[in-house]
């Protein structure tokens, strides 16, 4: 199965999320979604290769959250067993779990981003209602934007002297894939695969728990 085919099943199709804690929110025992027994079986039958993939993907998806390695996977798996997130039968299980992990991580990041740096202590002290600012001139928002820009810069710096890798990362950041990416970098598929491998190795070494 190609890499894009794996995520392709889920792209733009977030795992169906039931109302957490709602009584009677069990997934249907049969039908369009896997039930909890199917989910358990699917976990048990994950190959060592897929388990290692999940291990590595979790490290990347953790970025910007306050979760520790293992937490994200644990949360995704228990949510799936609980039926809080339902896996459509026509979606590859790996794609479902990866997308669930990413969705949970994104939720944690968003939550963290909305929390004031002091945890809301200043607002509480003033008796003010918490306000989630949407104005970019907000100093905290500006800080977040600056942090993101610094991270993009730091990622490019990782490949100082490796022009091909830099071009691939630049292409990725523009959303290029396949032929578009090959044309952008000016290489064939074999060279692109080799550059991708170098990037993956450098990135997982530089950011063992994802970047901030």
């Amino acid at each position, binding site marked *: 199965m190609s890499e894009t085919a794996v995520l392709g099943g889920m792209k733009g199709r977030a795992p169906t999320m039931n109302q957490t804690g709602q009584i009677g929110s069990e997934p249907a025992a049969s039908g369009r979604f896997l039930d909890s027994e199917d989910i358990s079986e699917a976990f048990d039958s994950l190959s060592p*290769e897929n*388990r290692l993939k999940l291990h590595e*993907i979790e490290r990347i998806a953790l970025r910007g959250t306050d979760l520790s390695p293992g937490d994200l996977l644990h949360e995704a798996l228990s949510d799936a067993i609980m039926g809080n997130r339902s896996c459509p039968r026509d979606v590859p299980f790996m794609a479902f779990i990866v997308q669930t992990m990413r969705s949970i991580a994104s939720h944690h990041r968003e939550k963290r981003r909305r929390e004031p740096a002091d945890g809301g202590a200043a607002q509480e002290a003033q008796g003010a209602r918490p306000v989630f600012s949407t104005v970019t001139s907000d100093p905290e928002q500006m800080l*977040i934007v600056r942090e*993101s*820009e610094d*991270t993009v810069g730091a990622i490019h710096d990782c490949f100082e002297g490796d022009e091909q890798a830099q071009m691939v990362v630049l292409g990725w950041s523009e959303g290029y894939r396949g032929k578009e990416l090959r044309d952008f970098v000016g290489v064939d598929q074999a060279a692109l695969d080799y550059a991708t491998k170098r990037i993956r190795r450098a990135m997982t070494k530089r950011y063992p728990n994802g970047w901030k």
Partner: protein
Amino acid sequence: MTGSRKNPAREQLDRIEDALIESILGASEAELREELGERGEDPDRCLLRMEQIIAGAKAAGGKRRMERAKSELQEWRAGPAKTLKFDREAARARFEKMRSRDPELASKMLLAARKGEGLSESDMEGLIEDLAKLERLDDENGGE
């Protein structure tokens, strides 16, 4: 995403993450083992850890499902009794109303009672129970 429109760098980071994840999904087991080894991590220990995470998640999920089932059972046990009592009281009130409004029915019942053919307390309870059931069925069918 609200943040990405104001933060193009974050959007770029999201796309880089997408590409890295796709690249991991496309890697072979041998490549992944090699990469873990390069970072000083033992792939077999990682697999063991994964096994523990899966077992832990299954246990936690099972426990939460059991708690949910227990609370549903408790609710189910509490629910029908309350409803039944309410139905019966309402049915009794309606029956009394019917009897008081229908002189013919009231006199027939009085006559039957004098002849010793009147309804016993348990007959009356049964009648009210049946009436409550009929009304419940009627409600379930949308009053048809």
